[in-house]
C-alpha cells in the first residue's frame, strides 16, 4: 500500500493521504502503520495521528535532534513503516459498549424512523446486531468514529445541529456511529446513551476506545444504565 500523496500540513507537520473515500481495509492498515510509526518515531516527532483515510505526523521544530529536512525524514520513516505494518497487523480488542436506547436518551429515534421506514425496535436490533470497528479517535478527546453501520441505518446528518448533545450519546450519520465524550454541539442522529465514560483524563489510558477496536453495542434497560453509571 502506498499513499496517494504526502504533503506538508502547515510548517510543522506532514499529512499522508491514503484514501479520499472511506475504505475500511485501508483504514485498518492505517492503524498498523500508525502503531509502527509510534514505535519507531524519533523524539522530534511529537504526534502520530491516524484519521479515516490518512495520517499526520506533527514535528517539534525546537527539538535538538530535528534533522535538516524533517519532511523528507518523516517520509522516509513512513516508507519503512509501510512494510513493517503489512507484516504485523494486530487484531483489535473486542469491546462491548452498553447502550440504553430508551426514548428519553434516543433523541432522534423518531427522525431515524421517519428516514428509514423501520420501527424503533428494528433500528435498535440492527444497530446492536453487527460488529462495528473504531476507525478514528478525533475531533474531541476520546471521541470515536465507528464504522460498520447497517446499510439500512445510513441517514444524513440533522439539518440543524443540536447546540448541546449530552455526554455519552450514541449517534449515527451516513455510515458511522460516534459517541459524544462530553456535552458538546453535534449534528448526528442520537439513538441512545452509554453509561460508560468514553474519556476520563484521570484514567490510563484516558480514552475508552482506540482505533481498530471491534465494538458491539449491547442494549440495556434503564435500570441497568443507572446501575452502571
Amino acid at each position, binding site marked *: 500500500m502506498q499513499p496517494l500523496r504526502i504533503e506538508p500540513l502547515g*510548517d510543522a507537520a506532514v499529512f499522508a493521504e491514503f484514501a479520499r473515500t472511506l475504505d475500511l481495509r485501508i483504514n485498518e492498515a492505517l492503524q498498523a502503520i500508525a502503531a509502527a510509526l509510534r514505535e519507531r518515531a524519533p523524539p522530534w516527532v511529537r504526534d502520530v495521528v491516524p*484519521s479515516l483515510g490518512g495520517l499526520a505526523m506533527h514535528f517539534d521544530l525546537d527539538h535538538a535532534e530535528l534533522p535538516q529536512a524533517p519532511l523528507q525524514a518523516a517520509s522516509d520513516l513512513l516508507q519503512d513503516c509501510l512494510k513493517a505494518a503489512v507484516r504485523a497487523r494486530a487484531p483489535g480488542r473486542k469491546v462491548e459498549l452498553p447502550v440504553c436506547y430508551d426514548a428519553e436518551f434516543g433523541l432522534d429515534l423518531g427522525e431515524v424512523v421517519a428516514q428509514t421506514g423501520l420501527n424503533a425496535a428494528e433500528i435498535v436490533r440492527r444497530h446492536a446486531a453487527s460488529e462495528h470497528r473504531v476507525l478514528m479517535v478525533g475531533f474531541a478527546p*476520546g471521541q470515536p468514529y465507528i464504522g460498520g453501520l447497517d446499510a439500512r441505518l445510513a441517514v444524513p446528518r440533522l439539518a440543524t445541529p443540536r447546540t448541546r448533545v449530552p455526554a455519552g450519546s450514541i449517534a449515527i450519520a451516513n455510515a458511522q456511529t460516534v459517541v459524544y465524550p462530553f456535552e458538546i454541539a453535534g449534528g448526528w442522529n442520537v439513538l441512545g446513551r452509554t453509561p460508560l465514560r468514553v474519556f476520563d483524563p484521570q484514567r490510563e489510558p484516558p480514552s475508552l476506545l482506540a482505533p481498530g477496536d471491534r465494538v458491539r453495542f449491547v442494549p440495556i434497560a434503564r435500570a441497568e444504565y443507572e446501575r452502571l453509571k
Partner: protein
Amino acid sequence: MSVRVLRPGLLTTVQDGGRRGLQHLGIVPGGAMDPTAFGFANALVGNHAGEAALEITLLGPQLAFETDALIALCGAEFDATLDGQALPRDRPVLVKAGGRLATGRAHRGSRAYLGVAGGIALEPLLGSRSTYLPAGFGGFQGRALRAGDVLPLAPDAAALASRHARTLQLPDPGGAPLRSAHWSAPSLTLPEQEFSVIHAMQGRHFGWFDAASQRGFFDVTWRVSPDSDRMGFRLLGPALARLDRDEILSEPTCLGTVQVPADGAPIALMVDHQTTGGYPKIAEIAGADMPRLAQLAPGAALRFARCTLTEALELRRVARRRFEAARRGIAWKYQT
C-alpha cells in the same frame, strides 16, 4: 502560599507549554496562546521554561497575594496596578504578602501572562497544567478562574522571591512599596496599529476555491470576529466560495490551519482546536506568526501575506533566534 481571586476577569486560565503525543486520542497540545510572551513571563521570574502561568484575556483579574512572590506580567498591554501603583510590564516585580494586583482592560493585544516564581502548584494532568476548556479538564478544576478561588503557589514561593530579589539586586524603593527591575523583556508579539500582517501558505484544498476567493483571501483585510476563542478565530470578510461540493473525509488539522465551513467564513485554528476536521483547508498560517495572531482582539484587522514553506521555516528560525537571545539575556541576570 497562595493567591486569592477577588475578581476573575473575562477569561483567566492556568496555562503552560501544553500536552504532547496525545493527538491520536483527540487531545491537542493546547497551552499558552502566545508562547513567546508566556516564555518571557517564566524567564523573568527565574522559572523553568514550562512552568504554569496565568493567561489573562482582554479584561484582567484582581488578585490578592497571601505570600511574598516575584511576578512578571508579559504580553498584551493591560492597565495594571500593584497596591495602587502602576505595575511596570515585562519585568520582575516583588509583591509582598497582602499585596493586591488589579488588572483592567487590554489597550494593545489581548492576552497577558502572569508568571510567578516557582510556578502555580497544581497537579499536572496528562503531562500538563494547561486548562483545556472544551472538555473541562486540566489547570484549575478544568475551568476559568472565578471570584473566591484560591490558587496554590509553590511552597517555596516566598523564599524564591527573596532569593531572586537579592540576585537581581532589585532596587530598594525608599519608602514606596514597589520593587522591580529597571530592565525588561522585549514585546515581540504586540499587534500593529493599522493591521497585522500574518504569513500563510496555500492549504491542501486551496485549489478547491474559485479564483475570486483564492485572490481575495490574500487581498482583503480580515477582522477577528467577536465569536472567536482559544479553539478558533472566525474571520470576518467576504464569503469564500468553493468550485464544487466534494465531501472530505475527516483528516488531521494543526495549529494555524484555516478551514472554511459551508457558510464561507474562514476559521483559523488556535491552540485548543479540534484534532481532526472535515472542512477544506484554504491556508496554513506560518507557525512563527501564530503568537502575534493570538494577540489580536475581536475587531482587530489582519491581512494574509503569501509565503512558501521554506519562507515559513525561515520566519520560525528568525523568531526563535530573537526569543532565545532575549531569554538568554534574562537568564544571565540570574547568574550574576
